[in-house]
């Protein structure tokens, strides 16, 4: 298994993380060739279904990279990305997939080395987990089916309405920390998620 190279799908925002990836290249910082990149203008565009679709389509893990909190080129898109990310983590947990397979992190445009560090560490972590399903002890095709369900849930109107209220409350409270946002999303979506995907594992 030493030759195992995880396949990671990345969604990078144009202004920070994508630029950081470029500047890593300019500085010739080396990192494992595990990442494939989808460029977006802002992580705020991240539909909660995208990462789940990535896993359905063969990614062992998904990475989302944006601007540091408070530095979003579009004011607050990365906070909304955290809302989408929180749903992805909730969904993964409920279908028995390691939350470590989805990472959202930040690198500013100047932080090539930081981007490299993030991707290198993430690749190592995913390599530990092995191909999707291995660490989870779930058969791959079965997992795929569950992921397809999860991706559909992320497109579900009720769940998306829950995310809207989570986002509104986030903006109102002015607390943009990850735990606070994850808490909001969990609270708002719990009922519907439990119905659609089953409860959280204890």
């Amino acid at each position, binding site marked *: 298994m030493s030759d195992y190279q995880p396949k990671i799908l990345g969604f990078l925002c144009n202004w920070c993380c994508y630029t950081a990836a470029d500047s*890593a290249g300019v500085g010739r910082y080396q990192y494992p060739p595990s990442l494939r990149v989808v*460029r977006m203008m802002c992580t705020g565009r991240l*539909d909660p279904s995208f990462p789940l679709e990535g896993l359905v389509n063969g990614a062992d893990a998904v990475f989302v990279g944006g601007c540091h909190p408070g530095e979003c080129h579009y004011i607050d898109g990365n906070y909304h990305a955290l809302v989408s990310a929180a749903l992805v983590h909730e969904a993964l947990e409920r279908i028995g997939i390691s939350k470590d397979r989805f990472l959202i992190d930040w690198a500013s445009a100047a932080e090539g080395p930081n981007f490299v560090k993030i991707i290198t560490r993430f690749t190592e972590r995913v390599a530990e987990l092995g191909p999707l399903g291995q660490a989870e002890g779930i058969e791959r095709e079965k997992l795929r089916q569950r992921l397809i369900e999860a991706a559909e849930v992320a497109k579900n109107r009720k769940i998306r309405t829950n995310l809207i209220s989570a986002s509104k409350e986030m903006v109102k409270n002015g607390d943009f920390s990850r735990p606070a946002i994850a808490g909001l999303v969990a609270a708002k979506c719990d009922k519907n998620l439990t119905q659609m995907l089953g409860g959280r594992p204890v």
Partner: protein
Amino acid sequence: MTVIAKTATKISGAVMVIGGGVAGVQTALDLTELGYKVYLIEKSGAIGGVMARLDKTFPTNDCSLCILAPKLVEAGRDPNIEILTLAELVDLQGEPGNFTATIKKQPRYIDEEICTGCGQCTLFCLKQIGNDFNENMEINHAAHIDYSQAVPTSYYIDAKACLKLNHDSCGLCAVACQAGAIRFDDTEKELEISVGAVILAPGFGRVSDEVMAKYGLGKFQDVITAFEHERLMCASGPTGGEILRISDRKHPKKIAFLQCIGSRDETCGNNYCSSVCCMYAIKQATLAREHDPDCEITLFYMDVRTHGKGFDAARKRAVEEGKFRVIYARPPRVEDVFGGGLLLTWATEDGKHHYEKFDMVVLSQGLEAPDEADKLAQAAGIDLNEYLFAETDTYTPLATSRPGVYVIGPFRGRKDIPDSVTQGGGAAALCAGQLAPARSSETVKAVFPEERDISQEEPRIGVFVCHCGINIGGVVNVPEVAEYAKTLPNVAYASANMYSCSQDAQRVLTETIQEHKLNRLVVAACTPRTHEPLFQATLREAGLNRSLFEMANIRDQCSWVHIHEPERATQKAKDAVRMAVAKACHLTALEEMQLPVTPSALVIGGGLAGMTAALTIADQGFDVALIERGTQLGGKALLLTADRRDNDPRQAVQAVIDRVNGHPHITVHTEAQVTACSGYVGNFTTTVESKDASELIHHGVTILATGGNPYQPTQYSYGSSPKIVTQLELEQRFIDHQGSLKIAKRTVMIQCVGSRDEDLTYCSRVCCGQALKNALRLKALQQEMQIIVLYRDMRAYGFMEDDYRKARQLGVIFTRYSLERKPEVSVDSDAVKVRYFDPLLGEDLETEADLLALSTGIVPEDPSVLAKMLKVPVTAEKFFLEAHVKLQPVDLPVDGTYVCGLAHSPRSMDETVAQAQAAAGRACHPLAKGSVTPAPIVSQIDAEQCIGCGACESFCPYKAINISKDDNGKRKARTITASCKGCGVCAARCPTMAIDMGRFTLNGIMAQIHAFGEEEKEVVEA
């Protein structure tokens, strides 16, 4: 007569900008937007200036280069900006409107037009030199580029170091350069250029090493300058972003920041304050804290001068969270002690002496006039002040002594980035006014063939895979990738080429698109961030819409980062191409809307800021409606009776009022108020209600100059004695009751009344200068008068430090007070007594004041009603919040709205005038263009699916989505294309996924995700 008129009125439509730092680049970009050709003259090998070397910028600590680089690229590819590097102005002849500038340009020895920026020359160059960009803390080569994002993206050879040029040996770079760009026979050139105006933005010089030698620089390795510290902090710096001691490469555990090195220092001739060091030290200390949470950090200040917008709050937060020790003292020297460490000794204000050892000492190196300022002044024919900065006047702050020659940035007197950028915008506006008849006379507009309609065609994708010399081809098997591309669905043509970005390749691309009837283009090469506009322009030339383009990044994010894994890199490149092709299938032509602009402006507020803005716009030939709530123009500037040069501002303001009233393009509405506003950039409609009429005004842009008011004090027994006045009331007494001032024996002034943590949380910036000015005026009336100024920090920034020194020389007593021990005032029948703590004596003193002047702050006019109407944000302190603190300091986040004057933040008259001119300049961009073209990556709403929930409207950061009722009375979301910036938050949050984004469509992204997995499937199936 006619003959004279013809020859005399030939006005040039070009402007020369001297200096390619952030101020120069900003003014150049603003000028081309306004319709003028720009010659940007830069002394070094690349534009970017000092800002490019900074790691972070205060007060927000965001990455400096990231916010600067897009501007540099924009300047680099603007067809109306000609960048001349290694060049300087040597002579300027002629008149405003018609100058001839002589430029001396040193050879680069590498052809800018051909150089691809691959860096092979540096790799092969044998001659090592210090890396100036990294403060010589690491090595570079004679053939080099200053920094990786440099513009022009072209290498150059240091003529002094090059072995070939000096010893006719080596020459390896010429062999290594596959593009064949090396020109050892390049020579110095002298160019004569006709321009209508000149803007000087040469930046600043630094306090010399000699001055800093006093503090051990050069003697002790671990005494470093703030500029060196900045590079140590930076990820692209010599230590990869680690703060290490030079002596032992260890992390310092105890850092001291020494302020005012070479500033406020008569011994080195720099009596002025450098204005920026207090804040940059706070920033550096904050970042040093982030680097090492256990490091002990001490800052030595004389006064903490953090007087900019939001600076005090940032400082307070930083000091508290970073647990910095702030000491009011000036250690006179740095000493070495036995056993290592750097010894500082200092005396505090209570007269006690202290000493302590530190691991590292950072010198907050002051700013001087630029090197060779005298030479530049002579070439440009302008006057300098005693400190060799450009001489300017309070009321025309951007004009030099020579008409048609303007000055911006630190050369006017040291300043920070927002002020420099602001002045860049202001000077551009002034040039545009001066050269109004020649607008667009020298600029070019690219003309493209008509777009081919491809909506009915099946996708025929062309894929071009770039070798980029050996940059990609040296790692990735480029021919294999090109062959692979041919097997992908909908790919009609694929090939590999050496340099896709060369001029030559653009021609090949155009021909291939036409020959093979391609309707979408994928280029696998470097990065879309730098090269997408180039290929899009090529696409347009081939008759295709710009949006039919996609790029696969196989260099910056592939070959360069997987140098040792060619097979996997090739696999990754194939994946990237497959994903790009999949997305390209879903690309559609997007209409670039050209929305017409009503060529007029609305300016709200008739004070100095509003009037200046109105005049600056009107001088460019656009109509302005100026709205003033009061009965007359002039605003609060009329309350001042002298400026610091002892001129009467009321006369200057009256002259401005007269110009406004007499200007054919300005309509003044007094006793009028804005009651409603709707529309978007280029197309606003505002209801203005005056005493007896209500009027609808159509305008393209809006400037907010609603001003501020003096803070009304309730503390210090104000109002209970005629002897207690505010500084503004004192100003009036100089006119009305000079006699009463003459007989006063003792005057006490109290600073920060209401400001800085009292009722107002912020620093009002102007009060220290006003107190100094009034103290000097009192001393001039009656030299024997005793004057005591009770202050917290004397914020006499810039040349005001001269006033501070003069006041001390004249015997004015300055005593610092702390928030914990504020002065106390009591009124006993006729006597006003002030009790305060004297730190030197260590006890309370009581003194009777014949006059007590309270230095009260500035309160902004309540912005809430206008803010709500125009949907623009305000700060917690009720100032309007600009779009970007550093780079868009006068733009509001809503396109087409701008802010200046006290509504933005407290500022002095010269600062207000410059800022108002900047706001006017920015506001004229859409007016001069005549149309606005939003990037077509905007949101599109499927009305069928939209349920009118309004989530998109509430989350849109730009108020670019509205909910309104459709014909059937159903609530539907609608994109205001002109305002949308394409972030996509609305799409991600839409409950019914009814919103899609141009170019970054749901289908496109899903296709990329599917394509990502396709290779995997093949392997599994096999």
